[in-house]
């Protein structure tokens, strides 16, 4: 029982990070139907930039803000320099562009910073909190709380604000969106900036627990993608539930089966979703008449 709770805690922590990555996928997917495989690099950049700003003497909260802003700017640049010039290209080409961008970002980070593992101190110390015989790190609570906060923010954005609906409208029908006066280019810029900022935020939260180096983004992008698929691509609720569920599945597999199989879980989930329910748990049932 204690063990189960312990696995659950670690699963929820990791799952919250996957959820944040999946939420980042959700925004760009909603705006453009593109799955941005550079999303994991945003998480990595959030961690790396915070580390180096902090080591240079910047106070931690300020370093985190700088990291989030710089990463958001990189997200916007990715859109302006790589996605926008390829407007009109098939979605698959755009996805391949994001894979290329992720390789570029990884390489550049390795050159600008280094190849070492880094961390910075946890926000509220490293003393584990005891809960019913299991323990949880204060930083885990930050990660889980952060994911919930971003989820609520996005949910409000997409369902309650006109700008949020404009994002959905742009994804649904770009031409019609322009005809009602939506600047679709600006919507894309907004989506990439926001999505990169959320990724960086995840990186800032999780680095004290998992550490960061230039190459942590690839695995995160894949796991986040699996989470988004599981929950239903494009749905913030799906991203949150999918992320937490995937994290817990991984933790349970590692705990009860073998930690060697842990990494396989995400891929099994992707396959299972594709075979059994391609729209995921909360995917939109698209009804369309022609």
């Amino acid at each position, binding site marked *: 029982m204690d063990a189960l709770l312990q696995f659950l805690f670690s699963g929820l922590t990791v799952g919250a990070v996957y959820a944040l990555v999946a939420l980042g996928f959700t925004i760009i997917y909603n705006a453009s139907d593109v799955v941005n495989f550079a999303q994991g690099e945003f998480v990595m950049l959030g961690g790396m930039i915070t580390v180096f700003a902090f080591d240079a003497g910047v106070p931690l909260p300020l370093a985190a803000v700088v990291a989030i802003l710089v990463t958001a700017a990189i997200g916007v640049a990715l859109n302006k320099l790589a996605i926008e010039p390829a407007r009109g290209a098939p979605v698959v080409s755009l996805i391949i562009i994001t894979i290329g961008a992720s390789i570029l970002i990884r390489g550049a980070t390795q050159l600008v910073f280094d190849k070492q593992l880094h961390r910075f101190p946890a926000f509220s110390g490293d003393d584990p909190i005891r809960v019913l015989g299991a323990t949880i790190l204060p930083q885990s609570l930050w990660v889980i709380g952060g994911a919930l906060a971003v989820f609520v923010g996005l949910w409000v954005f997409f369902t309650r604000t*006109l700008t949020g*609906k404009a994002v959905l409208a742009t994804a649904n029908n770009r031409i019609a969106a*322009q*005809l*009602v006066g939506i600047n679709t280019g600006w919507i894309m810029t907004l989506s990439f900036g926001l999505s990169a900022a959320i990724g960086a935020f995840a990186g800032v939260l999780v680095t004290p627990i998992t550490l960061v180096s230039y190459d942590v983004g690839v695995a995160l992008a894949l796991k986040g993608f699996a989470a988004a698929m599981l929950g239903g691509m494009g749905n913030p609720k799906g991203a949150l539930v999918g992320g937490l569920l995937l994290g817990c599945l991984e933790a349970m597999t590692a705990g009860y089966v073998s930690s060697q199989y842990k990494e396989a879980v995400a891929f099994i989930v992707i396959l299972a979703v594709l075979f059994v329910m391609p729209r995921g748990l909360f995917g939109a049932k698209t*009804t369309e008449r022609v």
Partner: protein
Amino acid sequence: MLTVEGLRSRYGRIEVLHGLDLKVSQGEIVTVVGANGAGKTTLLKCLSGTQPASDGTIVFRGQSLTAVPSHKRLKLGLAQSPEGRQIFTNLSVEENLRLGAFLFADDQVDRDMADAFAMFPILKEKRNLAAGGLSGGQQQMLAIARALMGRPHCLLLDEPSMGLAPLLVAQIFDVVKSLKARDVTVLLVEQNAFGALKIADRGYVMETGRITISGPAADLIADPRIREAYLGL
């Protein structure tokens, strides 16, 4: 209100509009009729900016539209209800209408929406449903209502009767006719020449990228060339 001169447009190397002149005055309903592939939709796309013009001028309310991007033309008062309706299928009927008034955030939005629901009561009934689930006729109503939410001076309507049952076609044409009372100028592009000419003030006949005949709608209905070619009479 709207003056088009020498308009040319191409898809790649193939020119589909070969120098088109057209004029719409304040308060008119003007229709452009013609067979499939005559370039009618391309004409409207050039006017709304979703298809680039390669030559010619478009002047709307005294301002040249050449350098105005698509999303800014509604702000000038030019709205389009595009071919194939192009509603936001994943969003609800109400959200579609609200987005039609994307440029506005005042009290009039609610009044306009009430107006739209009064004009098309069926949309009120289905306001919370995904627009993709509406029937073709209802989607067409939604497309027109959404365009009106943008408070246009001039509405471009592309084939509103396409694919609809005759009873619905009559209803849609009635609505178009009623726009005159709301001070909305209409440019109506139609394959259903008879229905369009009946409600229009003036008409243009388009053939393979050129205007071949133009005149008051009543004259066009009586014109033997048009009766034979387009009206099947």
